[in-house]
């Protein structure tokens, strides 16, 4: 394997024993796990990590989770949504406590990433797909990046929106971030945001004319990602600048 020596420059991604600092409930079905990871090599906004749990008898299970924290944050945060009948996510969301230990390795993924100098951001989140996009917005804030950013966040109801208070703060006037919501199933009285699944009209209104310097990051369940990416391409976005990631029930 001629390329292996060059590619191996980063060395293997070894498992690290991470300690849970706290588990922060985000919504009734999601929690953020804040971890101390010894010798964490650092990550880029948008990457994910593999988690491995071992039972007393040696049985192991692995899953991948998006990293929610900015690269600048000394602690690593994973936001996990509980999947009904899941093997791992209900344990992580409901059972894990401060002081517990889990194995972790990463960071993983070198495509769905944004650097603070990476140009304007167009973010499209479906449900828990907001997690890696949040890492980008946190990175943008931590570096005081002036890259214009727009987030369109589709959720079933306001109660299922992750990071709502923080998004409100980040989106305050003058910060260069605009946040729009669409609530597809249930809306509070007097709701003035969108109330339907995303479509080309909505994307055109939220994002405005195509900016060739912007990169779009789309993350959510498959139906959301397919609809959003297709609509962006139909609006004239260069497909090479539309990056997609799936986040949704895959049995976990």
């Amino acid at each position, binding site marked *: *394997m*001629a*390329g*292996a020596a060059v*590619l*191996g420059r*980063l*060395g*293997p*991604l070894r*498992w690290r*024993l991470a300690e849970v600092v706290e588990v922060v409930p985000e919504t009734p079905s999601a929690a953020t796990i804040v971890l101390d990871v010894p010798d964490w090599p650092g990550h880029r906004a948008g990457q994910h990590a*593999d988690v*491995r*749990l*071992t*039972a*007393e008898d*040696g*049985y*192991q*299970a*692995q*899953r*991948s989770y998006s990293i929610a924290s900015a690269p600048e944050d000394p602690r690593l945060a994973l936001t996990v949504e509980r999947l009904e009948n899941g*093997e*791992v996510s209900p*344990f992580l969301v409901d*059972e*894990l*406590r401060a002081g*517990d*230990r*889990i*194995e972790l390795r990463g960071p*993983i*993924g*070198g*495509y*769905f990433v944004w650097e603070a100098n990476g140009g304007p951001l167009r973010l499209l989140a479906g449900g828990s797909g907001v997690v890696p996009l949040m890492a980008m917005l946190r990175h943008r804030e931590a570096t005081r990046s002036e890259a214009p950013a727009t987030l369109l966040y589709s959720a079933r109801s306001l109660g299922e929106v992750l990071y709502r208070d923080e998004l409100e703060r980040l989106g305050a006037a003058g910060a260069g971030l605009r946040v729009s919501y669409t609530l597809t199933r249930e809306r509070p009285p007097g709701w003035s945001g969108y109330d339907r699944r995303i479509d080309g009209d909505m994307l055109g209104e939220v994002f405005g004319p195509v900016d060739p310097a912007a990169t779009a990051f789309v993350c959510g369940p*498959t139906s959301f*990602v*397919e609809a959003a*990416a*297709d609509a*962006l*391409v139909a609006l004239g976005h260069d*497909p*090479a600048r*539309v*990056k*997609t990631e*799936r986040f*949704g*029930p*895959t*049995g*976990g």
Partner: protein
Amino acid sequence: MDYVTRGFRGRRREPDESARVPPGQYLTDDFPVLSAGPTPHRPVAEWSFAVVAQDGEQLARWSWDEFRALPSETVTVDIHCVTKWSKLDTTWEGVSVDTLLSDVEAEAGYVTAFCDGGYTTNLPLEDVTGGKAWVAFGYDGEPLEPEHGGPARLLVPHLYFWKSAKWVRGLRLMDEDEPGFWEELGYHLYGDPWREQRYWGD
């Protein structure tokens, strides 16, 4: 064992299923979709499949109709995605890569699959010949849907599924193993799920 996670029990599998699930994988009945960008929607009238030599010379080419006139096979295989899901007994219809290479007079140690959308992946030639790989156009008795790689995708079930390139348009013969899209971005050059070759250095 300091790596035991307090209170985690997990869900054990039946022994006969366990033997078919590589390390670190879990079983799903869904068919999750993963891709790095928008789904190309290539009409079959504009589709072709090519075998290209190291120097760029086109050695063979089929239009959709010509490709579909080739002998095809129905295969039932287990598939394993590097994102940790495995799916057992998936049924595909496709043309064996052996058939596509049967009239090609050339030598190569490796191939790079190239695709609509710009995706590439690298494979040793011996991993796509000898009845181990297909260009699949059908899944579960239906035409392969675009989000799963239609009109046609590579099917190399003994390697992690990113090697089974969606929207495949051809194979380029290579003298050396040059990393493709994910292989450049941290994923393993070969990708054997039974040796858990997920990332560089595994």
